[in-house]
Structures are given as C-alpha cells and as structure tokens.
C-alpha cells in the first residue's frame, strides 16, 4: 500500500526544517513578487481608461514609468526566488542523500549482497535528484502560482463578483481534477525508475568488470543485454511520460473553457455598462496571467509524479531495517579478547545449513588456525563473529559478552578483519589507508606501513601519501592491494583480528617478509587465521579443522601436528606431497 500523499509531503518537510530561515525569506520574497505582479495590470487598466478619456499626457507617462519600475523589481525578486529555491532544495536533498547513504550502509550484508553499485547510484543520487528538481521548483512555482491565483481571484471579487465567482468555480474545478488524477503517473514512473536503475546497474557492473567481459569475448552478449534493458526503459518510460502529462492536458482544456466563459461574461457586463473598457482589458490580462500559473501547476504535476516515485523508492529504502539488532553494551575488557562459540548453528537460508552446533573457546591472546575445504564454513565463522549475519542458534561471546548485547561500533572498534577481497576508493593513498578517518596522523600511518613493508612503495609514489590511486587502484597488483588491506586494519589497532586468507594472493617470498610483521601485530591481540596454505599457520597456537560445517578436530597445533593420525597431521602430509608432486 503506497503511503498517503499528505504523509509523503510531511515526510519531505522534515528535511526543510533545518533551512527554515531561508524558507521564510523565500516565502516573503514570493509574496512580494506576487503582489507586484498583481499591481502591474492595474496600472495598465488605469492607463487605458485614461488614454480613452481626456487627460494630460504626463499622467500617462507617470503610469508607464511606474510600470517600468515595478517590472524591474519583479525581475530582481524572481531571480532571488529562483536562487533561494535552488539553494533550499540542494541543502534539503543533500540531507536526504546523506541520510540514505548512512542508512544503506547500516543495512546488513544480505542487503548489500543483492544491490549493485550502479543501482545504489540511482537510488541515492538519481531518485533524490528527481526530488530536488521538484523541491526547487515546488517552492518557487507551485506556492507562487497558488498565491498569484488567490490574489487574482480576490481582486476580481472587488470588481465584479459574478465573473469572479465563475473564475473561482473553474479554478477550483481544475485544481480538484488535477488533484484527483495527480497520481496517475506515479506507479508508471516508479516502474520507469526501476527499469532505469536496472540499466545503469548493468552498465556500471560491466564497466567495473570490463576485463572479464573483454577477454572472454563477452562484449557482443553485453550489447544484447544492453538493448534488452534499454528497451525496457523505453517501454516503461513512454508509458510513464504519457500518463504524467495527462493532468497538464486536462488542466489546459479546463482553463480554455474557463477563460472563454469569463470573457463572455465580461462582454455581457461591459455591454451593460457595469465595467469599463479598461476593466475588460484588466480581466483579459488576468486570464492571461492565470494561464501561466495553471500551466505551471500542470507542468509541476509531472515533476511531482517523478518526485513522488523517487520519494516512494527512497522511503522504501529508508524503511528497510537491518536484521542485525544492535545491543547497548559498550564496554569490553582491555587488551586481547577471548572468544567463545556455544552451540552455534547458522545457514544463509533456511534449507541449507552451513554451520552445525559449533562450540569452541579461545583465551585472550591465543591464535587459532582455521582449516577446511572451500564451503566448509570457515568464512561463515568470521562473518558471524563480526555480526555481518545473525546465528540461528547458540551464543557467541567476545571478552565474555554475548555479541548480541554489544553495540556495533563497540564491536568494530575492537575487532578487525582482513579478507582477500580488497576494495579501494578513488582517492589519495591516505584516504584509502585510513578510510577517510582524519584523526590518524601521518606518522602512525607511515609507521604501520613500514612494519608491513609497504613503506618503500609509498615513498616511490610521486606525492607520497597524497598520491591518488587512479580509478579504484587499477595500477595496484592484487598483492599490493592485500598489503593495503592489512595496513588498513592494523591502523585501527584491534584486540581481536580475523585474517581470512590474507596471504593467498602473495607470493611466498613476500609472504615470508610479511609474516614477521603479522606475527608482531598478532602478538598484541587474539587472532583467528583462516588459510588453505598450511605453512601460513606455523605460528598459531590452536588448530580447528572444519568439515561440512562441523568441527572435525580442535586442539593445540603442536599436539595435532605431531600426531600423524590426526586430521591436521594427515593434511600436513598430503599437503607436502602435493607441494612436491
């Protein structure tokens, strides 16, 4: 059920609250402009009546001069209104954009796993920009039009109430009709926005993965996909545009009827001698003036429908709630943190369980090596620990506290993870290493990069930490990117760290150089290392072997390694054989 229009308007207004000072000024200017607009036809009326009577030419010239002065003022005010309207709109919609980004980032990974970056561009920027057009013009045009309309009608009542009554009736009728069919295009617009988000999602994704597309001959197929997506945009868009334009057309027809009726009535009044020629002309001018606000209203209806579909999509996004419920607890013990799993079960969907009844315990400062085939549930353990997903059953404790009771910032302040998938931003090296945290000093960054062996690489860059990583770090090798990710996490000084195959993309020589640094840093915290290269795990205290989501083995590394019948012991042997085969 779509939200009521009044509801969405008030929802939008909340973003205008912080700019209410500007809004007040804007409305004031708008009223002044409208008042002046109403005055000028009156001057013309006097002008015509005087020209037809016998009067001094100087009186006519004064009226003309007055008209000119007011015309100049109107122009100045109009420009100010446009400026302020735009300013208010950008300020308000930027708040919406910020709110959306923040909200979307807080959503759980299940959300992020199905949204392409291109689609997010459309939802956070595209949809909001539609609203912003509306915001900017809504204030300047719709409100202005209404004020002008009301002013004209009130003024007409002073002169001739029957004519004014007819005009009012028609105006009210037009507005009612417009109101009744205002939503005609909203659903179609929403479909259009969806199709366009899908198109941009497709394009963005393929450009981001262009190497995969090109080198595997995927380009012709991509063009085919593009044509299909664009066709969908065309079909939904054509329908949306046509439906959106209906209110405009209907209003213009109604207006034509109204203007003709009013003028015919005026003719009757003129012939009866109730009004002068000047007043007849005044009415003609007012009907001309009404033309514009009414057309504007109709026009804005289109914008309104676009904005509304954007608004619906925005609110839809804002109403999504993360499945991860945050706790309140902020406190965790100082120093390395203990970890315990008690009967934890988990699946990404209901039918397919990934972890079955997993229980184990790590003391503060211990390092655990996690071994198992692809799909055995290694990565799931780390994702559960970081509350990227909720476990279905069982309790996970960090530092003795159930993680469900912890606030997420408190958790992430102390727990870090390095994965093999390194994501880089188009920005400076510093931005990429600190993730835009301005509180980290250069010394800290350089010290950590030194430890991890990235320092010489940074020094070789033309502007050091200020060098830009061109388009998402395409000049970085995967190994270098991996070092980046390690540095990033170590800069946050975690008390529990999870390394999810951090060295898988490094060659052995580099890995060996890195290992000392990793060991150094691991010395200060509890560590969980996931690896399929067993040599990575030579320095851990404990080993867990996972098989199909169950713990096949858990114990001290030394004991398991020296026991050839143990799972780990056997793995060591086959591993060596494989490496040497």
């Amino acid at each position, binding site marked *: 059920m779509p939200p009521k229009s009044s509801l969405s308007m008030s929802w939008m207004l909340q973003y205008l609250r912080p700019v209410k000072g500007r809004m007040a000024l804007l409305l004031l200017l708008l009223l002044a402009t409208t008042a002046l607009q109403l005055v000028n036809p009156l001057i013309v009326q006097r002008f015509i009546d005087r020209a037809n009577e016998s009067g001094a030419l100087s009186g006519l010239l004064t009226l003309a001069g007055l008209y000119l002065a007011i015309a100049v003022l109107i122009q100045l005010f109009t420009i100010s209104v446009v400026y302020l309207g735009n300013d208010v709109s950008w300020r308000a919609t930027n708040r919406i954009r910020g709110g959306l980004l923040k909200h979307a980032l807080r959503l759980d990974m299940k959300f992020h796993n199905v949204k392409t970056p291109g689609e997010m561009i459309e939802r956070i920027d595209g949809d909001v920009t539609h609203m912003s057009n509306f915001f900017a013009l809504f204030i300047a045009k719709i409100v202005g039009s209404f004020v002008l309309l009301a002013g004209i009608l009130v003024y007409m009542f002073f002169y001739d109430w029957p004519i004014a009554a007819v005009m009012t009736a028609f105006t009210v009728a037009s507005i009612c009709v417009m109101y009744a069919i205002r939503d005609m295009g909203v659903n179609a617009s929403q479909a259009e926005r969806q199709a366009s988000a899908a198109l941009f999602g497709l394009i963005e*994704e393929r450009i981001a993965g262009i190497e995969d597309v090109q*080198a595997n001959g995927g380009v012709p197929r991509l063009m085919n996909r593009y044509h299909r997506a664009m066709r969908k945009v065309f079909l939904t868009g054509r329908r949306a545009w046509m439906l959106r334009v209906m209110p405009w057309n209907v209003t213009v027809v109604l207006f034509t009827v109204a203007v003709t009726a009013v003028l015919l009535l005026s003719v009757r009044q003129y*012939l009866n001698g109730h009004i002068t020629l000047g007043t007849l002309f005044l009415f003609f001018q007012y009907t001309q003036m009404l033309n514009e606000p009414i057309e504007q209203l109709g026009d804005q209806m289109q914008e309104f429908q676009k904005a509304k579909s954007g608004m619906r999509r925005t609110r839809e996004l804002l109403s999504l709630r993360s499945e991860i419920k945050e706790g309140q607890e902020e406190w965790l013990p100082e120093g390395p943190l203990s970890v315990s799993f008690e009967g934890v079960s988990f699946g990404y969907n209901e039918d397919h369980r990934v972890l079955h009844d997993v229980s184990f315990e790590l003391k503060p400062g211990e390092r655990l090596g996690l071994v198992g085939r692809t799909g055995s549930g290694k990565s799931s353990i780390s994702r559960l620990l970081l509350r990227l997903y909720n476990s279905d059953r069982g309790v996970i404790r960090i530092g003795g506290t159930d993680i469900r009771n912890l606030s997420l910032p408190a958790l992430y302040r102390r727990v870090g993870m390095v994965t093999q998938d390194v994501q880089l931003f188009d920005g400076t090296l510093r931005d990429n290493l600190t993730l835009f945290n301005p509180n980290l000093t250069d010394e800290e960054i350089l010290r950590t990069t030194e430890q991890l062996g990235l320092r010489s690489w940074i020094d070789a860059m033309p502007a050091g930490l200020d060098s830009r990583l061109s388009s998402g770090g395409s000049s970085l090798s995967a190994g270098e990117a991996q070092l980046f990710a390690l540095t990033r996490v170590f800069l946050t000084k975690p008390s529990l760290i999870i390394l999810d195959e951090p060295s898988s993309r490094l060659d052995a020589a580099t890995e060996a150089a890195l290992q000392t640094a990793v060991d150094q840093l691991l010395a200060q915290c509890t560590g969980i290392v996931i690896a399929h290269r067993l040599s990575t795990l030579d320095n851990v205290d404990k080993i867990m072997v996972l098989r199909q989501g169950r713990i096949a083995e858990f114990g001290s590394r030394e004991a398991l390694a020296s026991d050839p019948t143990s799972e780990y012991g056997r793995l060591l042997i086959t591993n060596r054989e494989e490496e040497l085969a």
Partner: protein
Amino acid sequence: MTVTRFMGRLFSYTPSLIIINGLLWGLFHSLPVGIGLGMKWFFDRATAGSNDFFWLALPLIVVGLVRFVRTGTFFIAFYQWVRYIYHVQAWLRRNMLAGIMRWPGRNLPASPGEAMTRFRDDVDEVVEYVESWVDFWGRLIYAAACIVIMARIDWKITAVAILPLVAVSLFNNLSGDRARRYSASNREATGRITGFIAETFGAAQAVKLGQAEEHVLGRFEKLNENRRKAALRDSLFKQFMQSLNQHVLSICTGVILLVCAAEMKAGRFTVGDFALFTSYLTTFSFSVSLFGYMVFQHKRLKIGLDRMRTLFRPGEKDLIAEHSEIHIYGEAPEAEEPKEREEDRLLSLEVRGLSYSYPDSDNGIQDVGFRLTRGKFLVVTGRVGAGKSTLVRTLLGLLPKDEGTIHWNGRAIEDPAEFLKPPRSAYTPQVPRLFSDTLRENITQGKDVAPERLDRVLRLSVMERDIKTLENGLDTLVGPRGVMLSGGQIQRAATARMLMTGSDLFIFDDLSSALDVETEKTLWERLFQEPDVTCIAVSHRRAALSRADHILVMKDGKVEAEGTLAELLETSAEMRLLWQGEETSSAETHGEDAAREKESVRG
C-alpha cells in the same frame, strides 16, 4: 568533432522523428499567433461600440477553438517527443557502451561510477538541446509572424521590442566561456559523487568493519556540499541566461507603454493593438529566450560532448555519433558467435620486447619476451609487484603496450585486445568478477550450451560438488560481483567461464590463490588430462611450477631468469627464494629432487 557536426549526425540519424516533431511542435508554437489576432479582433470590435453580444463574442469563441486545437496538437506532439527522447538516449548509450568496451580494460579513462554520469547526465543534456531544436522552428515561425504583424501596426514600437533580442544574443555569446566553466565544474562534482557512491557500496563490508561509516558519510557530505555550490552557480547562471530576455522584454512592455502613450492619446494606437502587443510579447519573450538559451546550450554541450567522447579510444572519438541499431521496438538479435578460422588455430605465440609502464609511477614491465607452442604450459612467477599480472594484461591488450611485438602463428597482431579473445584465447583475472545474474548465465555468458558441455566444464573447474550444495544449483543468483559465492567458488566459476569458451589458449592470472590445496590439485590434474591444452599461468605455487614446460621468473618488471624448473633452481637465486618460501619447512634439496623426478616423468 564540433557540437554542430555532432548535432548534424544526430538529426540525420532519425530524420523522420525530427521532421515529425518539428512539424507538430511548429504547429503548437505558432498557434498563439491566431490567439493574439483573435484578441485584437475582439478589442477592436469592443471599442467599436456595438451592442450585439454575439457579434462581439465570435472572436472569443474562435480564440477558444484555437486553444483546443493547440492542446490536441500538444498531446500528439508530446508522444512523438517522448519517442525521440528514448531514441537519442538509446543511441548515445549504445555507442558509449560499445566505445568503452574497446578500451584497454585495465586503463579506463574514468572510474565506473564516474563513467555513469556520462551515460546519465551528459546524455540528458543532449536531449535537452535536441528539445530546444524541436521547439526552435515553431518558435521561429511564431516570432517572425509576430514581428511582421506588429511592425505593420507600428514599426517604431516593434523596434523597441526587438532591439533587446540583438543585445541579449550578443550578451549570451560573450558569456559562453563562463557558462561552460560552471557547467563543467558541476558535472565534475556530480561525477565525484556517483563515483563515491559506487565505490562505497562496492566496499560496503570494508566500510562496516573499518568503523568508517561516519568518516565515509563525512566525506560524502563534503562532496555533496561542493556539488551544491557548483550546481547552484550553474543553475543560477543558466536560469539567468534563460530568463534574461524575459526580463528585458517585460521591461520593454513598460517602455512600449511610455512610447505608445502619445500615440494612443492621438488615437493611432488602439486598445486592440495594445492587447495584441501584450499577448504577443509574453510568448514572444519565450521565443527570444529560447534563441538566446540555445546559443548558451550549444556552447555548454561542448563539455558534455567532450566528456562523452573521452569514453572512446583516441582516433575513435567520432564513433559517439555512429549511426547504429538500437532495437527499442523489437527484441535485439542474439549476439553473434565469433567466427573460427582454421589459419588462426594456435600453433605458436611469440612475444618480443613487450613493455608497459604505469603513468605517474616507475612500476611496469620492460622488454619481456617468450615463445609458446601449442600444447605447452608456460608459468610466469615472481614476487608481489614483479609485473606478472601486468605482463598478462599487456599481452591481452587490457593495458596498452608501450613497445613490443606479438606474433600469432608468425603473424603480427596489431590490436591484441581485438584478437586475443575467444575462440583464440580466454582469461581469468586475478580477482575475477562475476555479475549479478544466475551462476549459469555467468558461466555460459548467456549462450545456449548443451548440458553435456556444461557438465564437462564444471567438472574441469571442480565446480560440480558446489553446484549441489548451492540453494538453486546453477540457477542461484550470485549477487553483485558474485558475493553470494565464496572466494574459491568465484574463482572456479570464472575458470569455468573461461573454459566454456573452448579457446585455444587459456590464461590464468593466479587461479590458485583462492583455492585450497586439494581442489587446486584436482583442477590441474583434470585440466592436463584434456588433450591439446595450451596455458599461460601466473603462479608462485609448486603445484603449477612443477608442471610447467617453461618458467619465466619476473623481478622488478624484467625477466630475471627463464627455463625449466630444474635449470632455474640451479641457476637463479630468485627462483630458489620463491621455491623455498613456498615450503619453508622443507629443505632445498627436496624441491630439486622433486623437480628432477618430475622432469623424468614428463621427459
């Protein structure tokens, strides 16, 4: 390509649409001429002092009818215009997408998020300019008719109304540079925002875990604020330019009043004339604004056009206006399968003096060469940053080579990106990307494939067991970048995609990095059981090195040593370091023994 030539190409792309739109909108915009004449007619009759209501009402009814016709015209014209919008959009986007796909993929002129503003905002700007052109003809007819009619009533007063037109057009011409500058900075600010959104959501997990939400938001707000300023300047200037003529002309009405006061007094200028003038001038001012605005738009489009043209490779920039098929009325034809030519079946691949250096840094590769014949296995090894991936990418044309030659069966390959793709070669990048489709669609790349062939490829890439554990098997949606799969599954799915192409040469960039030992072992075993497989693999793993027919050891972008494993272990210190590092606990001799064993087995 100038804006003028570009617009010429655009209009000649769908001539029928521009003609239909021009005619319909021409009618729509010129009908107000009749409304003005009707009103003059009416006021002339009103001042004539007759008392016959119907005689006086007739002009009003005629005016009403003209208005109705105009509304009807609008509806039809609007439909045609909407069609035109989507033609232009589909056409430009198709050309841009095709254009960017011809770039060396590792060396794009813009980040994906930024490129998106070209597909969206710059295209919209073209549409906006086309809209002006569609309106132009009607407005021109209207303006000309107005001038003629008004001049016949009183040429002096008409001159007062028309002079500002000249002034304003001149002014617009002078302010073009400024307009362009404002527009460019606005677009740049927008590009930075879309780019940032794309990257943020591409890195959602890193942002969450790095507690960076607040910092990212802070950066986003800063970018937003910059855009607000840029957009405000741009739109204010645009608005000012657009409405300047209107401003000037509403002031002109005042001047006309001043001028015509005496005339009216003398009875030479009637109320009907005055009605006609005011009726015309309001709409006339729109026409004049449009002409002035079009000058401005024309200049501003230069930026948008340049930004779109950057998506094309040097020398191909004009393809932006290529007359291509857009298929918006019917299904697009199925993608054509690449043709296999017998003389292109791989016999030998020879690379000489291949060099590439990254801009703004000393990294890259210099003077790399090798020779590979059918059925052989070449392994490229070396440390992080040694240039292994750079070598493979330069070979494939994903990076533009600075120097060097590539010969396929002895024939020089000028454009490797165009040639080294299926059915000749296929590639799995170091960090493969899957797309948000089903797994099947990702592996087959949308082709219809016989189930047996799919099964075979899945078995070769050791994927068959994973399919069973996935919720919907091959029809599982893998999510953006394949996030619903594990790293190992993505890597093997990408391998399957590569094998699916049935190419002569397979290029693995560090395939094994996300695979566990057993899976990897199975994969190599199965692959080498296949007859006639030619491979280039970047790897530092023993599993790969020991199967290699030839090894290139890279260091600092150059070939440090090359040869068979046994030779290299004897002669190259770098190779020994890499080999030992790979199995720190085993002694050096172990490795050599194993390598010799291997040689004897294969030999």
